[in-house]
């Protein structure tokens, strides 16, 4: 495996971590807001 491939792979793992974290953060926020909307009278 060339150093460039290895370096891209490491970056892709970081993107995986940050990407999944980001999606869950945004989705969780939307979920909480929708739940709060449901409680509004």
């Amino acid at each position: 495996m060339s150093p460039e491939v290895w370096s891209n792979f490491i970056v892709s793992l970081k993107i995986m971590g940050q990407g999944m974290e980001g999606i869950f953060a945004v989705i969780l926020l939307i979920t909480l807001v929708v739940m709060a909307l449901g409680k509004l009278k």
Partner: protein
Amino acid sequence: MEFLLNGIMAVTGKELVMYLVGAGLIWLAVKKGYEPALLLPMGFGAILVNLPFSGVLNQTMEGIGVAPGIIQWLFETTIAASEALPILLFIGIGAMIDFGPLLSQPVMFLFGAAAQFGIFFAISLATLLGFDLKDAASIGIIGAADGPTSILVSQILHSNFVGAIAVAAYSYMALVPIIQPFAIRLVTTRSERRIPMKYNPRNVTKRTKILFPIIVTFIVGLIAPASVALVGFLMFGNLVRECGVLDSLLKTAQDELANLITLLLGLTISFSMRAEAFVRADTLLILLIGLAAFVFDTIGGVLFAKALNLVLPRLGRPKINPMIGAAGISAFPMSSRVVQKMAAAEERGNIILMHAVGANVAGQIASVIAGGLVISLVSQYLR
């Protein structure tokens, strides 16, 4: 008479392969009914752009100069220059989606997030197979299970493989009924697939339905601004649907606008299916990585549901049928139908359709958010 034979004599082996690819896509559309609205125009377009000296591409003619080609013009103006076609299509998609089943059980949003795992798995796999970061990210987005998002992201990232990515995205969306049952069975037991789920939806007010697209646009726009073109247009279409005062615009968005763009998008994207760009070993690799993306989307969603099942009983809550997690991809409504069909096959009378629909529409939002996040993250690492 010799000039009449110029075209025939100029056909190359790669172009012959593309005629077969075009015919194959048309066959899948007509005979199998797989995503015909996209695969048929793409298949026909693949033939059009690969005819020697094709008039649908810009051609330099002796004594005349450059004669513009319509498909090249369409691609350069509506996709390369502005990404207008895939973005505008989201107005139509938003106008068609009823978020009611999701809003009535908001917890289903989480499955939409979990089922994007395949995108990131595929990005890593693509880098291991030697693709650079921009191409790997573009290939990974096939896992969004969302054709317009795949086209948009690969175009923004200037990928060299837009054609192969579009073909893979739309083909695998059509193959969800084959791919997902296989992946679900890999990570679930029969008893897990038989878990029943009660459906007790919360009442969703009209005010919630109207506020939802506005709030989502704000949240996503502020946290993941690169997603806002996609999410914003999707949510605008949904606002037109839910506001209740734009009936004629709603009808136009759902029918004429969506149909017109779909018709042109397939033909336009075929510009990236020219033989020299498409017939290469990398295309086969992209198709394989795309398949892995769909499989790992499904596995990611199912494993997330199984993880929740470790906690829910301790909180006094009933378990979730883990197949619901698989429905968190964007391929709507195929994925929810597949999950319901599997549940009913395992346990007669087991109806989990509305839960699956909730997760499925969550996947539509999560996939466009994922698209924006991938663009932001890749650009951050390429600085």
